[in-house]
């Protein structure tokens, strides 16, 4: 049976540009598929992705949910006899997916290279500078007198809350569209492999959240990864969860208080002994510790085995900026140095906005897209 392969050479070049630069070294020995402890027995990855990439089989690669099953421990790349870095290829395919499945692909392009970083920063920088200028005009000073209360300069009711709510729900809408696009493309190799009654998608989704996301079980199963990557990732994950709960509580009590006045009890800045503040501070500490571990693991990687790319460093640096400006906002407020405190808080708002507004196009988009892919493969019995 003659089978004509139609390679998409442009696609191969794009793939090499987003982190798959070694893919052509592969000679298809299949060590990687065996080395990967979480790759399934039937049509295991990443050997098949390596040959598809070499041959420029774009459709196969783009319709493949397996790229999301990989948790990037790097065991395949460590054992690869050719230094073809299959782990990096799967990461590159995910980076490509962020560009491809989300609406407004130009933002995906901006996130793909440092030359567009200025655009990404400029939008929130101008946005929050305008707020700052208007308020400074009203107050008569760029740094309000008296006790440092960030609400004086950036009031919740008219600036922070509406801007972040619009940003947040916009992000959710984009994720919704992206998720639909992603599910529409999935055409995995092989058949549905479920024995007996197939679980519903929703049931699978809950199982993924409970069995995989909450516990980070796959990280533990991940090969020879002796690093503390799991601890780091888990800390960052729960830190964000804690900070989300804090934000939710403050916003909930505040806006709820407009309806039921007795709820209006959480006024920022909170007392350091307030349980919500304690949770917030614990979250900040967990975030910094987790980030230190993840950054360290990434810095310690042997570039012969795995190369970190711009997607990796962009996300790490933005989260670092969010965490550090958050912590320093609190410290300079407590130290009562208004000029520095308000300026740092401004940067904090800029970076937090960057984190959330661009989330679906950044590497952090895996929070939604990986979960969806894991749900999907579970639904069809592939795991």
């Amino acid at each position, binding site marked *: 049976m003659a089978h004509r392969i139609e390679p998409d050479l442009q696609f191969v070049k794009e793939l090499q540009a987003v982190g798959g630069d070694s893919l052509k070294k592969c000679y298809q020995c299949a060590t990687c598929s065996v080395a990967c402890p979480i790759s399934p027995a039937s049509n295991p990855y990443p050997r098949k992705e390596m040959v598809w990439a070499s041959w420029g089989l774009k459709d196969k690669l783009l319709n493949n949910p397996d790229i999301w099953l990989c948790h990037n421990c790097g065991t395949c790349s460590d*054992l690869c006899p050719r230094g073809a870095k299959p782990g990096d290829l799967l990461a590159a395919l995910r980076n490509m997916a962020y560009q491809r499945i989300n609406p407004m692909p130009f933002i995906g392009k901006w996130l793909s290279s440092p030359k567009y970083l200025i655009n990404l920063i400029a939008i929130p920088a101008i946005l929050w500078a305008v707020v700052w200028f208007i308020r400074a005009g009203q107050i008569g000073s760029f740094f309000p007198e008296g006790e440092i209360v960030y609400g004086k300069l950036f009031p919740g009711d008219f600036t922070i809350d509406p801007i972040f709510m619009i940003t947040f729900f916009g992000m959710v809408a984009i994720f919704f569209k992206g998720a639909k696009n992603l599910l529409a493309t999935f055409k995995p190799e092989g058949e549905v492999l479920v024995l007996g009654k197939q679980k519903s998608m929703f049931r699978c989704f809950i199982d993924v959240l409970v069995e995989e996301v909450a516990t980070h079980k796959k990280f533990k199963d991940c090969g020879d990864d002796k690093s503390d990557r799991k601890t780091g990732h888990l800390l960052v994950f729960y830190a964000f969860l804690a900070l989300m709960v804090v934000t939710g509580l403050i916003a909930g009590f505040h806006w709820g208080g407009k309806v039921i006045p007795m709820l209006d009890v959480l006024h920022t800045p909170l007392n350091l002994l307030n349980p919500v503040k304690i949770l917030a501070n614990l979250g900040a500490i967990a975030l910094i510790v987790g980030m230190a571990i993840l950054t360290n693991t990434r810095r310690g990687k042997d570039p012969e085995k795995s190369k970190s790319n711009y997607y990796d460093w962009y996300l790490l640096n933005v989260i670092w900026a969010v965490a550090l400006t958050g912590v320093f906002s609190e410290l300079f407020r407590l130290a009562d140095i208004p000029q520095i405190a308000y300026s740092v808080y401004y940067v904090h708002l800029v970076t937090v906005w960057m984190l959330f507004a661009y989330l679906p196009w950044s590497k952090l988009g895996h929070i939604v897209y990986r979960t969806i892919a894991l749900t999907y493969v579970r639904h069809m019995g592939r795991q």
Partner: protein
Amino acid sequence: MSNSILVVGGGFSGLTAALEAAELGYEVYIVEKSPFLGGRVAQLNKYFPKLCPPSCGLEIQYQRIKKNPNVKFLTMATVDSVEGEAGNFTVKVSIAPRCTAPSSADLGELAASLESEVADEFNLGLATRKPLYMDTPFAFPNRFVLEPKKLSSADAIKVGASDACDLNEAAKEIELSVGSIVLATGWKPYDVTNLSNLGAGQITNCISNMQMERLASPNGPTDGGITRPSDGKAPEKIAFVQCAGSRDQNHLGFCSYICCMASLKQALYVREQYPDADVTIYYIDMRTPGRYDKFMRKAIADEKLHLVKGKVAGVEEDAATGDVIVEVEDAVKGHKAKIRHDMVVLATGMQPSLAGDTNPFGVELDEEGFVVDGEAKGIFSAGCAQKPLDVMRSAQSGTSAALKAIQTVRGR
């Protein structure tokens, strides 16, 4: 000035180089590290291209040496230093004591009566031997070697009483004047303990291809019976793991040229002994250069010999049965599985002997340890010191090196 030639290494390429030069009238010294000539070929059961037993091809070489007064060979000898330049080298050689008389007395009975046993390197750890020994019955020189330090005190008394043994023979150092040098230092099997995902040499029934040669050899530890080292059971299902440490930047970065052929050859050993046994060769690419392709076609016509594309990347032992479980993806079918075998053979590659060893010759080695330079200095490489080769091509490269060496010393 000297028109003698030094050949370092008494394996197939070194013997060939030495004889070609000697038979044209040049004085040749062979310096061989081990106690016997013949090198790696002597360890094989059969060798390419005609699948002869080594006693056949080597016997001819030994006869040629015996008849030719131009060839002088030193065994248990190593080169310490080389000074000078083409046409005028001074080479210091140390010779370890053999501790037996030069009369080639048959010490077989005495050896058999000893109680001490030592690990047998010639049999790659598959057996033990006495400290008074010969590698094979056809070993050349046909003269026993005694290791006095490894004798028990009772054995020492027995051996001391023999006229043919000298427990106190001292090491010697000599100096040779030569005009040219041929490096035929050969190869060593890649160290399986580096292959952490392939059992690292800790799994009894997961052996290397050189161990398989010893098992299949009539003068090996099992008298030629291919049986499991753990329990002597006849294997019904055997796997060969190709590229075990070859073509791998974490181990040997090159293809060892002959391992695919060696596994096909060994598959035939198994199939000849066991008409019901099932043999699978797991490979990345079956490399059967030139006319060897015909050999493969013939071999795989056997329906019990299977070729599966996919490199084995995991080997485990089933402690209860001694079985060996290999984990591999069949890259054609796209299915990975753990497959149980009675016995597994790792097709390990050839590492040049000079890799990680001292290099008193002042020649440049590449990162893998192969000789890449030296011709301008009057030093020529032959055989697997140069690149991985089969026996036939080793012999050819020996002839080639001999010719170059002769051109260097001619007329001096």
